C-alpha cells in the first residue's frame, strides 16, 4: 500500500508491505533498513540506513509535529485508501466560499478594526490580539466581506477559537 507524507513544501511517498510481523518500507525497489525505538515522552531513536536520528513525534488531529536535526515539520500522513475517500468527499461537496478565521494563538482581543457586513482588502488589519506582551495583527487573507464577528474587544480567546467569518469577494 502507498503512504503519502506531506510537509508544507514537499511531498513524499512510501510503498509498504506487511511480511509476517514486519512492515517493509520500499523505495526505488529496495527495502529501507530501519530501526525505530521509542524512548518515551514522544522521543524515538531512528536508525535508517545506518544514519542515526533523534525524532520527536507528537500527533495532533491529523498532523504529526515532527522535530528532527534541530528542525521542525508538520507532516500529514495518509494512505492510498484514505486519500481516495477524501478526494471523493471533496469533489462531491458544493463549493462554499466562507472562510473562518481562527485565533492562531491564545490571547486577548485588544482591538477589532472591522464591522460585520463591511468589505475589506487583502492585508487590511482585522483584529489585534495580544499575548506575551506583543501585539499580533490578524489581516485579511484576500479581498473579502466580513460575514460575522464572533468576538468582542477585551475577550480572552483560546487557540483556534473562531474570530471572524469571511466571504471572498470575486
Amino acid at each position, binding site marked *: 500500500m502507498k503512504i503519502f507524507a506531506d510537509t508544507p513544501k514537499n511531498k513524499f511517498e512510501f510503498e509498504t508491505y506487511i511480511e509476517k510481523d514486519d512492515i517493509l518500507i520500499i523505495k526505488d525497489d529496495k527495502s529501507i*533498513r530501519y530501526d525505530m525505538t521509542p524512548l518515551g515522552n514522544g522521543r*524515538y531513536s531512528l536508525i535508517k540506513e545506518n544514519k542515526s*536520528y533523534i525524532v520527536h513525534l*507528537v500527533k495532533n488531529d491529523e498532523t504529526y509535529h515532527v522535530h528532527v536535526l534541530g528542525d521542525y515539520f508538520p507532516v500529514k500522513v495518509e494512505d492510498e485508501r484514505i486519500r481516495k475517500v477524501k478526494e471523493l468527499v471533496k469533489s462531491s461537496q458544493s463549493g462554499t466560499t466562507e472562510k473562518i478565521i481562527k485565533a492562531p494563538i491564545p490571547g486577548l482581543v485588544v482591538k477589532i478594526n472591522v464591522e460585520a457586513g463591511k468589505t475589506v482588502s487583502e492585508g487590511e488589519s482585522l483584529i489585534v490580539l495580544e499575548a506575551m506582551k506583543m501585539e499580533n495583527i490578524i489581516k485579511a487573507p484576500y479581498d473579502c466581506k466580513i460575514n460575522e464577528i464572533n468576538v468582542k474587544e477585551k475577550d480572552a480567546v483560546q487557540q483556534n477559537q473562531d474570530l471572524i467569518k469571511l466571504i471572498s469577494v470575486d
Partner: protein
Amino acid sequence: MFKKILIANRGEIAVRIMRTCQEMDITTAAVFSEVDRKSPFVYYADEAYPLGGITSQESYLKWEKIIGIAKEYGAEAIHPGYGFLSENADFAEAVFAEGLTFIGPPADAIRVMGNKTEARKLMIANGIPTVPGTEDAIKDKDKARQTARKIGYPILIKAAAGGGGKGMRLVEDDGQFFEAIEGAAREAKAAFNDSTVYIEKFVEEPRHIEFQILADSKGNVIHLGERECSIQRRHQKVIEESPSSLLTNELRAKMGKAAVQAAKVCGYRSAGTIEFLVDKNLNFYFLEMNTRLQVEHPVTEMVSGLDLVKEQILIAAGKSMTSLKSLDDFWGHAIECRLYAENPDNNFAPSPGEILFLKSADGPGIREDSGVTQGSEISLYYDPMISKLIAWGSDRRQAIMRMLRALREYEILGIHTTIPFLIRVLEHPLFQKGKFTTKFIEENREQLFVENINTAEVASFAAALDQINEKSKISIYNNHKNNKHGSSWKLIHRQQSLRKK
C-alpha cells in the same frame, strides 16, 4: 556585604541573579505571581513570598507591596533584574527612602537616561553623536507627523519609557503614521504603564552595537567592550555576540570612550549599557542607555571572565568593582541565542503550553541561563523568552559551530521554540562572514524559511512509520536485518505493546 537580597523579577533572570547570590553566600528572596507558583525561580530561591495577581500590573509591578515584603522579612537590598521595575526611578527612590539598597544606578541617572528624549539632549550637550529625531515626547500627532516628514521616512516611533522593542514601530511612509503611533502608544502603555513615544530617523544599513559599562562609587568608570546585537526581528534582539566583527581596535577605543563619557555625565553607578547605531560609513550614534543589567550580559561575562551581577552587588554595597581596567583584550568569542516560546513557521506566534520533555545542550563551551524546566507551564502573561544559550569559542568560527551543535542537540517537547530559525540564521553565509545589518532577517527572509528536503524526508519517514504502526497494530520498530539483539528485541517489543494499550 548584604545578608539577604530580594529579587523583584521572574524567569531566567531571577534564577541568574540568585545563582550569583548563592555563590556570594547571600540569602535570596523570591516574589511571585499566582501563575508562577511552580516556576523554577520560586523553588530556586531560599525564601519565597506570594504577590498574588496574574498580570504584571497585578504582581511584579506592585512595588509598594514588594518593598513591604523586603522590609518585613529583612532583605537589605532589592535587585530588579531587567524589565518590570528595573528602570523605574520612582521605585529606586522609594527603595532608598525605606532604608534599603536598590541594586542599580541612582534614581536620577535612571530618570534622565530612562526618558529617551532627555537622554538625547544630554548626549547632544556633551558632544556625543545622536540620531536625528524629536527632542521631546510627542504630544500632538499632527505636529509629530510634520516632524517625521521633515526628518524624512523611514522613521522609528519608540516608547520613551521602554526598551526591548516593545512600543516600537517602523514607519516607511506617511500613510502608516497614525496607525503606527497609536499601536506603539498602546503597547508602551501595556508594557511600561507609560504611553509616551518619540520619533527618530531610521539609520540605513545600521548595525546595533552596544558597550557594557561599569561604574562604582569610588569614581571608577570602565567599559568591558562591545556586544554586536544587529540580528533583530521586530526590533527584538535575537542573537548577540562579543566582540563585533565590524569594529577595528581604533573604533572600539573611540566608541568605548564615548560610552564611558555618557555614563559619567549622568552620574552613573552600577552596570549599564550604552547602545549605539553604526552606519555603513562606520559613523556611530548614541541610541539610548539601558540603566540596568542587559539580557545579553552573558556574552560579556564569557569574554571578560567577570560576573556582572556580582559586580552590581559589590558596587551597590559601596565596594570597588573587581577589575579596574577597561577590557582591551577579549578572551575568545561568545555568542548568545535567545530561545523564545514562539513558532517561527507561524509568523512567530506565541506558543504557550506545558514543556513535556527537556534535554538541554551541554558540553564544551556551552552555558545556558534557563528559567524553565520539564513540567513548566509557559503562560501568555509574560515575556516569551524562556532561556538563553551562550557559546564560547577561541574564535568566532568555533563559537558559531558550538552554538550550532548546541541548538541541534537541544530537545524540547510540548511548545514551539525559535531554535529551527536560529539554526538557519547561524548557518547563513552572510552571518558566518559577519556581513549583516539590523535588517538581516528581513532581507534574507526567503533563505531563513527554506525547507531542507533531506531533513523533511526523515521527518516524513518517521511520521509514516508511526502511522503505519498505529494502524497495523503489529510492532514495526526494529526490522534491522543484521539484528541479533535477543534481549534488546524483547525489550522493544514489550514497550511497543505497552504503548498500544
